C-alpha cells in the first residue's frame, strides 16, 4: 500500500472576479521512502496542492477530494482537531523562506522543544536532548549554544537547517518541502539538498519536493509530477521523464534551460511563447493549448484525460508523442 494516495483533489478559491480553480483533479501516489518532485511555474498549483493535503488552505478556498489516504487514514474524514495531531507529527512541512516561519521572539531551542512537546508527552530535558541531537544531524556546530539564539542571529542557510531539524522533531513519515532552497545561494543549495537526501534515508521518510527548478528535481527525485494550470500534466520516473518527455509543456520547459556544455552559448534558447493562463472562470479544454505548437481544434473542446502508458507513466495531451512528431 502506498504511503500517500491522493485521489481527485481540487481546490477552488472565491475571488472578487469569480472562482479560481487553483488545483484541478490532481491524483498521485507516493510510496514509502520515495521522493516525489513536483515541478511547475508560479501559479501552477503546486504549493496549493501541498497546503490542501495538510488542510491549511486560506478561508476563501474550498477543498474537494474523493480521498487523501495517508497510511490508510483518509485525511478528508478527519476533524480539525485530529488533523492538528497529524501536522508536524507524522507529516511535517518546510517552506521557502525560513525567516517568516520561525518566530522572531522565541529562541531556536524554545521553538524546537515546543514542536515535540505539542505532540508527545515528554519532559523538556528529553525534548532538549532530541533538539541538540537533531541540530547536530542537520550539520549545525555548537548545537547547545545555538538553542539559546534567536532566528535573526542565524544566516539563511542555518535557518533552513533549523527548520529542517524542527520538522524532524517528531520523526515524521512524510516531509513536504516547498521550495526549500530557492532563497539560498547555489553553494548552500547543494548542501541543503545533500542534507535532505541523507536525512530521508536515515530517518526512513518519504519526501515531496516542490520546486520550479528542474535541476533540483533531476538530482533529488525518484518520480516527477509536472504541474501546469492547476493540473498534473505529466508523471513518471525521473530518468524517463527527462530523457523522453511525453507532454509538450515538459518538452518546452526542458528546452528553456541553458546547460553548460550542451546548449551552444549565444544561441537562442528554446522558449514557450506567451504566459501562464488565468484559472479564473471557465477552464474547459487543455490549458496549455494557446502556448502549444501542436494545438488542434479538439484541444479546446473537452477536458483532456490523463493517458496512462504501459511503463507506468502518464500524460495529459490529446496527441500521443508519435502523433505530434508526424504533424
Amino acid at each position, binding site marked *: 500500500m502506498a504511503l500517500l494516495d491522493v485521489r481527485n483533489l481540487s481546490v477552488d478559491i472565491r475571488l472578487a472576479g469569480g472562482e479560481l480553480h487553483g488545483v484541478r483533479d490532481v491524483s498521485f501516489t507516493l510510496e514509502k521512502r520515495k521522493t516525489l518532485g513536483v515541478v511547475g*511555474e508560479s501559479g501552477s498549483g503546486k504549493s496549493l496542492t501541498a497546503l490542501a493535503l495538510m488542510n491549511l488552505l486560506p478561508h476563501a478556498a474550498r477543498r474537494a477530494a474523493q480521498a487523501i489516504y495517508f497510511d490508510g487514514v483518509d485525511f478528508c474524514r478527519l476533524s480539525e482537531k485530529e488533523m492538528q495531531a497529524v501536522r508536524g507529527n507524522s507529516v511535517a512541512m518546510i517552506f521557502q523562506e525560513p525567516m517568516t516561519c520561525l518566530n522572531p521572539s522565541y529562541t531556536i531551542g524554545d521553538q524546537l522543544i515546543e514542536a515535540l512537546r505539542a505532540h508527545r508527552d515528554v519532559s523538556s530535558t528529553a525534548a532538549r536532548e532530541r533538539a541538540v541531537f537533531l541540530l547536530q544531524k542537520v550539520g549545525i556546530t555548537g548545537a547547545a549554544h545555538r538553542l539559546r539564539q534567536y532566528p535573526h542571529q542565524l*544566516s539563511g542557510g542555518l535557518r533552513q537547517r533549523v527548520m529542517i531539524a524542527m520538522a524532524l522533531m517528531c520523526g515524521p513519515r512524510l516531509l513536504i518541502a516547498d521550495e526549500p532552497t530557492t532563497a539560498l545561494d547555489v*553553494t548552500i543549495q*547543494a548542501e541543503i539538498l545533500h542534507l535532505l537526501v541523507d536525512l530521508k534515508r536515515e530517518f526512513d521518510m518519504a519526501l515531496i519536493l516542490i520546486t520550479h527548478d528542474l535541476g533540483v528535481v533531476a538530482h533529488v527525485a525518484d518520480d516527477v509530477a509536472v504541474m501546469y494550470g492547476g493540473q498534473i500534466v505529466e508523471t513518471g520516473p525521473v530518468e524517463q521523464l527527462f530523457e523522453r518527455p511525453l507532454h509538450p509543456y515538459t518538452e518546452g520547459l526542458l528546452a*528553456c534551460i*541553458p*546547460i*553548460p556544455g550542451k546548449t551552444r552559448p549565444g544561441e537562442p*534558447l528554446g522558449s514557450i*511563447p506567451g504566459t501562464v493562463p488565468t484559472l479564473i472562470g471557465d477552464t474547459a479544454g487543455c490549458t496549455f493549448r494557446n502556448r502549444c505548437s501542436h494545438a488542434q481544434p479538439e484541444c479546446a473542446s473537452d477536458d483532456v484525460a490523463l493517458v496512462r502508458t504501459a511503463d507506468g507513466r502518464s500524460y495529459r495531451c490529446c496527441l500521443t508523442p508519435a502523433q505530434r512528431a508526424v504533424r
Partner: protein
Amino acid sequence: MSTEHPLLELRDVQRTFAVSRGFLHRKQPLRAVGGVSLELRRGEVLGLVGESGCGKSTLALMALGLLQPDAGEILLDGQPMAAQPRSAIARRIQPIFQDPYSTLNPRKTVGAIVSLPLRVHRVGAPQTWRRTAQEMLERVGLPARVHDSYPNQLSGGQRQRVAIARALVMRPELVICDEPTSALDVSVQAQILNLLIELRRELNLTYLLISHNLAVVEHLATRVAVMYLGRIVEASSTGQVFGQARHPYTRALLKSILTPTPGSGVPDTQIEGAFPNPLDPPSGCSFHPRCAEALPLCSRSAPRPLMDARGMVECHLHDGTVDAAPENRGGEAAAVTK
C-alpha cells in the same frame, strides 16, 4: 585604432560602508568592494558571478556612477567618470534590475515610463517621444496597446520587457543587467535571455551581466569574473572558466550547478561552512576557511593577482609562492596543485 580604450575600466576600485552596530556603539567599517580592477571591452558580455554579499551589486552601482568609490578610479571610454556629469553617464550606461515589480512606477503608464528618459534628456522633438517609445516597446516584443497600460496590468515577463525598453530607449552603449531573470519563471526566463541576446547583436550593446545563475552566465557571457568577499578571484574567457577553472572557489561554484540531467545525485561542492561575515573577514586569503585545498600559508598572507595568457587568478596555488617555498605546501594539498 591602436589607442582604443576599453568602454569601461575599473582601476583598483574600493568602497567601504560604515555599518551601525546599535546605540552607543561606534560604527564599524564594512569593506564591500576591496580593490577591484576590471576591463569591459566594447561588444563583450562580462558575466559577474558570486554569492550574495560578495559586493556584486555595490560594484554595479559604482559602474553606473550612482555610488562614488572611496579609492581607485573608473574610466568611461578612457575619461575619468568622476569628472563627468551624471546625465552624460546616464546616456551611455543604463541598468536593468532584478525585480520588475519594484522598479516600475505603479502610477505611470508604460508609455510614460519608457519615454521619461527622452523627456529628461530632451532627446529629439517632444512630438517624436511617443513614437520612439512605441517603437522601443515593439522592439522588445510588447504589443503597441501596452503603451497606455499600467505596470500592474502586466505579467512579470512583460514588466521586465518594459524595464529593458526603458533602459534601451536612450540607445546606451553599456547595459548593466543585475540578475535580469532571477525573479521570472523558467519559460519566461528563456524569452528574456533570447531578447537580450538579440538586442545585443542588433543595437551593438555591451553588457555587464550580474547573476548567481552560472548556466545563464555561460550561455550569455563572453568573459566571466568571479567575485568573493569584495575581490575578483578569477577572471577569464567563458570557455576557460567553465572548462579549466583555476581558483578553488570557481571550481566549487561550477560543481554546484544542478543541470537537468538525472542520475548523478546531488553534487558535492567540497566547500565548507557559510559565506564569511564581511564585518569580520578572515585573515590571509578570504576564502581559506572554506577552501578544500587551503595551505598553511593561506591563512597568513593574502594572494596577489596573477595575470597570464589564461586570464587572471588570485590564489596561492597559482601565484608561484607554493613552488618557490615548498615548506608552505601542506601534505594533502600537494596532490591537488598539479
